[in-house]
């Protein structure tokens, strides 16, 4: 299954939820969610298609809104002959700055726990329903704002 | 046994002076061999002495919430026990410096005194980590003591006496028994390794979990005495094993006079050094076992072998009697 075949399959599976989708030249797929509320639904459909490996969650402060990127990986099948290589795909959710909240994935995807805590630490996006929302990377008594928000950036 | 020879035995020859130097030499040999097995260079010959003197110079603190009397007395009791044990073990001839019927039991008790002093010292030092370490020391003590006694009693049963000197005389007179005692010798080696809390049986002071277990709070003179006790225990244990299972001064036991004594000492040194070398290699090739695995090894493997050994000795005894 080449990346473009996977893209067509996912396009029609997730058509209701997507705002846009593109395929980068190096075989990387990207799907932009229309509304961050359907994140859970999109991830569960991915899991039904066998894509369960969440690589990581990246938060980017894009000026007036925060983009949260969920990078997934579909395993390559080495053993049963079909040497289809693994494909990397990203689901991008847009979170407005005035209401920085997003639903947690930990109940369908326990692997997301640490990445969501890092997102909370660094970008200040509150992940609702997270089982263990303490600080992961910052000191407990660190009272400066989320370090990677544009206003806190110390770009000397 | 007039006063002069008594003091000579106690303080000079099989007593303190000889044991002090031989213990440090044994520690040097052990550490050097362990290092060479790992392709490392290893310490210079006087390193153990340097460590001992350095520790003597260091401050010997007493923790606030420790019970001072017991904490201070612990190191001495262990060392005293082990030093006196040496007097009952034959060195240069088949009879030891002192001997009486039943001195084997006394020696076995004196040899386990350091473990108790370690326990009391660690428990009353008031440090949580050493208390966990001491409970492990005691659990391990229950593990190795029983097989060690079984192994030690095998030659006693064969010789029909509990006097160390006459046991050595018996083994010396019919050396074939040494082959019969081979399993007991292996149990003795493993139990000595466990008594000294060396790999693979060093769970009580496992560096990667408890950071030096019972001795965590000890420093200065007291720590120096504890380390010396352990070295002397190694030497005395090796001496006991060589006396019981390798027939003490076996080939030269019967030669009289000064030459016999000199040869006896040479044979004693050779055998004990060989035992220390075997324990050192053993330390180099095995990984550390968890505390319940140590007990598992001793109870599930060594106790049955010990009982079997006693059975074999009895059978051999009957067989010899039966034929007579």
């Amino acid at each position, binding site marked *: 299954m080449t990346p473009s075949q996977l893209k067509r399959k996912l396009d029609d599976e997730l058509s209701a939820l997507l705002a846009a989708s593109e395929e980068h030249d190096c075989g990387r797929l990207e799907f932009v969610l229309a509304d961050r509320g359907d994140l859970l639904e999109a991830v569960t459909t991915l899991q039904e298609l066998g894509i369960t490996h969440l690589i990581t969650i990246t938060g980017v402060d894009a000026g007036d809104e925060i983009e949260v990127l969920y990078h997934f990986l579909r395993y390559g099948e080495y053993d049963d002959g079909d040497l289809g290589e693994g494909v990397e795909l990203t689901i991008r959710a847009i979170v407005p700055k005035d209401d920085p909240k997003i639903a947690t994935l930990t109940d369908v995807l326990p692997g997301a726990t640490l990445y969501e805590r890092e997102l909370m630490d660094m970008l200040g996006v509150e992940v609702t329903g997270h089982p263990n929302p303490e600080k992961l990377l910052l000191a407990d008594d660190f009272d400066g704002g989320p370090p990677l928000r544009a206003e806190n950036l110390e770009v000397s | 046994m007039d006063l002069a020879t008594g003091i000579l035995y106690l303080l000079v020859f099989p007593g303190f002076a000889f044991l002090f130097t031989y213990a440090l030499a044994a520690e040097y040999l052990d550490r050097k061999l362990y290092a060479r*097995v790992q392709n490392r*260079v290893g310490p210079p010959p006087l390193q153990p002495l340097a460590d001992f003197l350095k520790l003597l110079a260091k401050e010997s603190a007493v923790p606030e919430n420790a019970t001072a009397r017991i904490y201070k007395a612990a190191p001495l009791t262990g060392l005293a026990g082990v030093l006196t044990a040496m007097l009952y073990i034959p060195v240069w001839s088949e009879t030891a410096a002192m001997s009486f019927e039943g001195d084997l039991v006394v020696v076995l008790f004196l040899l386990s005194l350091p473990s108790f002093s370690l326990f009391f010292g660690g428990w009353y030092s008031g440090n949580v980590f050493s208390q966990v370490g001491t409970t492990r020391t005691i659990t391990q003590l229950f593990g190795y003591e029983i097989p060690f006694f079984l192994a030690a009693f095998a030659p006693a049963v064969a010789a029909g006496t509990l006097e160390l000197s006459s046991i050595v005389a018996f083994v010396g007179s019919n050396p074939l028994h040494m082959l019969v005692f081979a399993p007991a010798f292996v149990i003795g080696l493993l139990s000595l390794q466990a008594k000294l809390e060396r790999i693979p049986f060093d769970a009580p002071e496992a560096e990667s979990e408890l950071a030096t277990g019972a001795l965590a709070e000890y420093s200065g003179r007291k720590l120096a005495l504890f380390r010396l006790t352990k070295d002397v225990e190694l030497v005395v244990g090796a001496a006991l094993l060589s006396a019981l299972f390798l027939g003490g001064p076996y080939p030269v036991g019967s030669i009289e006079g000064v030459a016999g004594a000199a040869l006896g000492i040479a044979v004693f040194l050779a055998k004990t050094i060989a035992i220390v070398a075997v324990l050192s*290699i053993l330390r180099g*090739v095995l990984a550390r076992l968890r505390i319940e695995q140590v007990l598992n090894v001793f109870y599930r493997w060594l106790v049955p072998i010990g009982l079997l050994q006693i059975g074999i000795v009895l059978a051999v005894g009957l067989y010899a009697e039966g034929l007579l």
Partner: protein
Amino acid sequence: MSLPGKLVPEALKTLGKDRATVSYPKNKRTLPERFRGAVEFDPDPCTGCGMCERHCAADAITVTSGPDGTVSWEYDVARCMFCGQCEESCPTDAIVMGQEFELADSDRESFEERYTFER
């Protein structure tokens, strides 16, 4: 449940081997030719362009050109991380990575090197 002690033959063989370590500082290992130690600077070819300062990630080099056409090139070995980028970025090969790695010292000034020359 095999008998423990698989390593005994290797352990006994190792007894015979000679040491694997070098007793530094009595005798020292010969460094490979490409070893990157402290920076060695030669003022003559230097044009004072400052590419080394710009590409130095550790800000260990500062190049200042004085009013009367003199250029001063300062290098702080305490900040340098020996990556060798200055050697590569220097258009006139004025900077070469030396082989000196024993750089510990007690006073801070000894870490700074300063060259001032006419340009």
